[in-house]
């Protein structure tokens, strides 16, 4: 049944004792996993709301992705990746590997779920087999931290996004040859300031439309600008649309609904929001303010629900987190 992106209802809200910053539904939609500023993975059974903590990581869990019919992959700041088998009553650790020597900042899975890619703080991108965690290839060594990855549904291309100072860059690569097919510079998402010689902004997440024709990169427009998502055409690199919030902060996550619209999750120092957009309109269809910054979102495999993570606290210092599940209305 079609749902309206403009109408959503809060189903479940779980409070957690640390700020949360990543989430993903399991492939069968039975569980919702979330990670944040500790080494635990929060697991919520969607139907009952029952909460379990999964142990295995040694540091903050920053990235998560579904893989195939039964796996969820999670990565942490030490460079470790864990595969959780979600086919049973509770997710169970299938394999764990020290994928990178530094923080994994980006994690993406192929459309068939058999391959995944990781990108780290040092600019390394690696390709792996999802089933057993075996490395297939050291793909590229970028000079800049990798903050976004996607494997194109055609199985032939991989898209990377980096945090290059002044010119955060999207690159489309041919997987078999390793050649760069397209390079898109995104200075609009740069927050570089010479005074610190640091890129404050940059691309914070990358995702593809379901058919792979569009690349969505999110971040902040300038050093102190609004949360923004830019949509580019994958083949031409042409800017298709700019989704600009009124919230002064970062857009941390964007996801495409199967019906063609886009959800974004954003946050500033002490508040947040999520919005629904059409990709051919500048104005959002709906926006919902949240108590804390929205740090991640995921859409349920059945496309009827979505989850949001938040960081909650007084002023600018969050001490706890919220994991919420919403349902779209018809």
């Amino acid at each position, binding site marked *: 049944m079609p749902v309206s992106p403009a109408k959503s209802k809060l189903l479940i809200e779980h409070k957690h004792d*640390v*700020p949360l910053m990543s989430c993903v539904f399991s492939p069968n939609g039975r569980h919702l996993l979330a990670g944040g*500023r*500790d*080494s635990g993975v929060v697991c919520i059974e969607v139907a009952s709301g029952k909460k379990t903590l999964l142990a295995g990581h*040694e*540091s*903050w869990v*920053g990235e998560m992705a579904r893989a195939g019919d039964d796996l969820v992959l999670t990565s*942490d*700041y*030490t460079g470790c990746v864990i595969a959780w088998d979600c086919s049973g009553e509770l997710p169970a650790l299938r394999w764990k590997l020290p994928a990178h020597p*530094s*923080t994994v900042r980006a994690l993406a899975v192929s459309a068939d779920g058999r391959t995944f890619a990781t990108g780290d*703080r040092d600019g390394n991108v690696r390709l792996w087999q999802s089933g057993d965690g075996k490395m297939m290839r050291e793909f590229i060594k970028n000079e800049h*931290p990798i903050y976004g990855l996607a494997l194109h549904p055609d199985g032939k291309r991989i898209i990377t996004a980096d*945090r290059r100072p002044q010119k955060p860059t999207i690159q489309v690569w041919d997987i078999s040859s390793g050649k760069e097919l397209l390079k898109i510079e995104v200075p609009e998402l740069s927050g570089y300031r*010479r*005074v*610190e*010689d*640091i890129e*404050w902004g940059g691309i914070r997440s990358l995702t593809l439309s379901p058919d792979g024709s569009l690349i969505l990169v999110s971040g902040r427009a300038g050093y102190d600008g609004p949360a923004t998502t830019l949509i580019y055409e994958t083949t031409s690199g042409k800017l298709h649309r700019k989704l600009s919030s009124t919230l002064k*902060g*970062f857009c941390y996550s964007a996801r495409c609904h199967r019906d063609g619209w886009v959800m974004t999750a954003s*946050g*500033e*120092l*002490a508040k947040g929001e999520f919005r629904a957009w059409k990709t051919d309109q500048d104005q959002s269809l709906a926006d919902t303010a949240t108590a*804390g*910054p929205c740090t991640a979102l995921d859409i349920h495999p059945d496309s009827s629900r979505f989850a949001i993570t938040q*960081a909650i*606290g007084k002023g*600018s*210092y*969050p*001490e706890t987190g919220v994991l919420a599940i919403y349902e779209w209305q018809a």
Partner: protein
Amino acid sequence: MRHSTIASITRREAIARTLGLAGAAAMAPSALATSPHRKQLLVLFLSGGASQLETWDPKPGTKFGGPFRAINTSLDGVRIGELLPRTAKIMHRLAVVRSVNSNLPDHEKGHYAIQAGRLAPGYPVLGSAVAKLLEQPGDILPGYITLRRDGPKAYTDTGDAGFLGAKYEGVRVINGLPPDNLIVPAGINAAALQTRDAARRAADERFLRTHARSPINGYGTTFDQASALMQRREIFDLKAESPKDVERYGRHDFGQNCMLARRLLEAGVPCVRVVHFDWDAHQDNFYWHQMRCAEFDRTFVTLLDDLEQRGMLEHTLVVVTGEMGRTPQINNFGGRDHWGRAWSMAMAGCGIKQGVVHGMTNDLGTEVKEDEVGIGDLFHTYLTALGIDSSADYHLNGQTNPVADPAAGPIKAVLA
């Protein structure tokens, strides 16, 4: 207890004290000739304020500990942040203070106070004070040189020689280039230069007949120092270093400035400060510290190794500090903000006991738990390590001022 016997610190007296002699009158040319190598100071200033939790005082797995792990070091039972793997291997050569409470969560005030060893304005910062106190007859190069890249925040250069005057101001070297106007402009030959200098000196002499000497002497010294630097421009030529060494230090600003610092110390400059930009991580503290620590870790260890191999560490005090630490609390942009109540710094080299970790913070790193150290204590410690009597007074222009805050004292636990 304060010393009461020192009436004033002149150049000769300072040297005498440095050499441990009874007084200026006791110092003879032969004493200088047989003196140990002159003490020197190198300050690596982590400007903006490094996070103690990501460096010297990690609290992994705690509420504010952040995402990084602690790693073992060459010192039994002591762990530091995993972002400093090379430094971890030389911890037995360092003294780390984990209990600094400056209570100054402010760049500008912190910059001045941590360098001057007190809050009251107008005092010389460490580099200027040491330039004065370690001054020797015949010194021609500047006593204090500070190295940084261009475009810093305004607070970086806060404070300098204070009441010691222009003579002891830090000479700023930006981007590794010699100070401005060091090179004689084309078209001015040596004879013309000499004529100009003679005219300047004559004007000075005339002015001095009716005015106080101090400022004029300061300006005269500045000209002399500039002239000396003109003769030693090769110090600034890092192309003289092998590409391998350039790589070892790192090609970034901090690496190259540390290499230049070593060359300046080798040339006899008493005090050099290298500013490492910018640790002010209000956003993305963990990304930021990964980048900054990677630069610092490699360069710092390379520099210490080089100083040791060249026999320089025996007479060079190396101080690693910023103007404050960073909040244990992590804000919503993943940043840590300003924090002065519980943070860390490190020292190595001359006068310092190796393999010491002094002080302790509480489990969350929010407050000092044991052996609190203030900015005045650090200042006393630096001077004492350099063989300077930190309880002495300056007597200048009819005024008496203590060299270091009389209410504070050296940290004996870290002194050799």
